[in-house]
């Protein structure tokens, strides 16, 4: 049962990432693309955690934590650039 649920949830997260990729490509404005990238890194955290469950290994947890921190910092940096025209004033 767990294998089946893992496969289904990996497929659903892959579809979610493809939808986010569509918004990155089409999105009419710049904040749309930043929002789609923000959603994509959150989805990829879930995919990495699912991969760790699949392999039964704890190694991939650190990768997920790194992606969470760097994704947040990059989103804040790009938003500050859009707001102020500069990141560190």
């Amino acid at each position, binding site marked *: 049962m*767990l294998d089946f649920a893992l496969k289904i949830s*990996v497929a659903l997260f892959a579809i979610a990432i493809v939808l986010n990729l569509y918004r990155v490509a089409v999105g009419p404005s*710049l904040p749309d693309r930043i929002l789609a990238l923000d959603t994509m890194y959150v*989805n990829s955290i879930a995919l990495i955690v699912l991969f760790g469950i699949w392999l039964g290994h704890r190694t991939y947890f650190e990768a997920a934590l790194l992606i969470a921190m760097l994704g*947040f910092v990059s989103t804040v940096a790009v938003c500050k650039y*859009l707001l102020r025209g500069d990141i560190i004033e």
Partner: protein
Amino acid sequence: MIALYTLMEGVIAFFLIAGSIFALIGSLGLARMKDFYMRLHGPSKISTLGVGCVLLASIAYFSLLNGGPSLQELLITIFLFITAPVSAHLLSKSALHQKLPRDPRTRGNPEELQEDDDETTLEEAPQGSSKLP
């Protein structure tokens, strides 16, 4: 003991399916809604409910596998719960700063999007007079 394992397997499978369905719904909203201010709703569902459920499933799975509590995934959960509102707030501020167009069904009338009438009439008046011969 075998009954416990079967029960925990069912719980983990439920959390996995629930989290992935929430993530799919959020991404569908991000892809299909009309303007930016509506689209901002979807990712909050993903980052709280979707990834939260998947991380709960991971906590349950590794606790069962190692025979003891392993709460390291709570770090990611807490971090996402703290940072998701901050990034949504910054994104909405940058969208208001760029004066993105909105659907007429989007409610609210923030002062960043209000067009002040005095400036437009002042700008239009010299152009109208310059077009006269």
